[in-house]
């Protein structure tokens, strides 16, 4: 199994800072903005971003987790159902600017499911997508991210592995793995 490092800890910090700056440019004081992390792995990236944004803007920004398992389009099309995770959105997203955060953008299908599931919490004014890694050339739906940490050209046979300290790993590292 071949492993190639795409982002190390230092580069990840820089990337996160850049993403925060881009968000601040577009969201001013964040008074109408909410941040939602996608379960199961996007929540860690979302937490890092949210913490840094609150620190930089000195504002409280509503933050939640969204699980889109029950909205997936591959239910009954795979051997076993995917295990659901917790959804925790303690605020109303009606009329808000939603910033949706995930770790890796691949086929775009989980983002479609996420947008569907969001409707249960109200009608947002806008929805923007932040991803740490954008896997180019693998999209199956017309979905694109508004803020991208790093774009990588990958084959469908490859996998992106995100290891974050928040998930219990020793160091922040993001790998590209060849599945053989």
């Amino acid at each position, binding site marked *: 199994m071949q492993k190639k490092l795409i982002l190390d800890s230092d580069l990840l910090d820089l990337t996160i800072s850049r993403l925060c700056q881009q968000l601040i440019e577009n969201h001013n004081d964040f008074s109408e903005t909410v941040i939602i992390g996608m379960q199961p792995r996007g929540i860690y990236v979302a937490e890092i971003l949210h913490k840094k944004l609150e620190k930089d803007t000195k504002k409280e920004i509503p933050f939640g987790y969204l*699980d889109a398992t*029950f*909205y997936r389009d591959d239910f009954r099309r795979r051997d076993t159902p*995917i295990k659901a995770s917790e959804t925790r959105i303690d605020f109303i997203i009606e009329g808000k600017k939603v910033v949706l955060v995930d770790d890796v953008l691949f086929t775009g299908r989980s983002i479609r499911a996420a947008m569907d599931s969001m*409707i*249960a919490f109200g009608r947002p004014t806008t929805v923007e997508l932040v991803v740490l890694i954008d896997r180019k050339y693998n999209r199956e739906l017309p979905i694109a991210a508004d803020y991208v940490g790093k774009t990588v050209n990958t084959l469908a046979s490859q996998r992106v592995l995100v290891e974050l300290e928040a998930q219990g790993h020793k160091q922040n590292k993001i790998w590209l793995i060849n599945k053989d």
Partner: protein
Amino acid sequence: MSKLSQKHLLGIKDITREDIELIFETADNFKEVINRPIKKVPSLRDVTIANVFFENSTRTRLSFELAQKRLSADVVNFSASNSSVKKGETLLDTVNNILAMKVDMIVMRHASPGAAHYLSKHINANIVNAGDGTHEHPTQALLDAFSIREKLGSVSGKKVAIIGDILHSRVALSNIFALKKLGAKVMVCGPPTLLPKFIGQLGVEVEFDVHKALQWCDVANVLRIQLERQHIKYFPSLREYSLYYGITKKILDSLKKPIVIMHPGPINRGVELSSDAADSSHSIILDQVENGVAVRMAVLYLLAGATS
């Protein structure tokens, strides 16, 4: 990945502790869903479910139907009282006719113990047993255990007394299996005529004095006296039963520690449970009903999702 070890839910006896825990974790998520302003998810939109009820039911049937609708399944309801069963059609013919209309799952209640097992051997669809005679009522036991877990944090190590008509109760049997699998201590309590002779062999304690049972337990699951199944007299009168086995607020207040009161419904107020006890802060009877929908959603979701 997450998958139940069985294709059907016929009884708690057939499933594992891991299955029960998976159902609970999934039900946690569905409980959050049914408390949203929009309570519906599209998971089962290409699934058709038939609720086949050969015996009367209000709560279970309504709960299953709501669970199915909140998962976006198509639902057809069948009740034996106004069907061709009255004209002499067999169970297998009835169900095969329903399945020929492209139904994917069957939720069945039947007066004969083992009816769901029998069906599972002869048809291809997923089957959920919604009660088979005096045998099992698995989803009720799951929602009871789920409610205990929600109220007390866990089921393991808790003392649960099942009080009342154990002899005719499918809820009691399924509860015993579920609670034992989850590591609880179980006691059954009732008049000797309403306790099955060999119930102790299931690894439960047997007590005839309701006061001692209440003193012992953390949770009392009070069962209804099933007069419709009692063709001979098991006790002299309802009044006498109520006098010796009825649970009142006064008795609950006299205990050393507060206990949780559960009841699978329908309650015979003033017989097994007095009104002041059923409506007291000890009671989680309405939480059980709410949890019933979430637990049934989890069961249907997990069974429908396992395609291999």
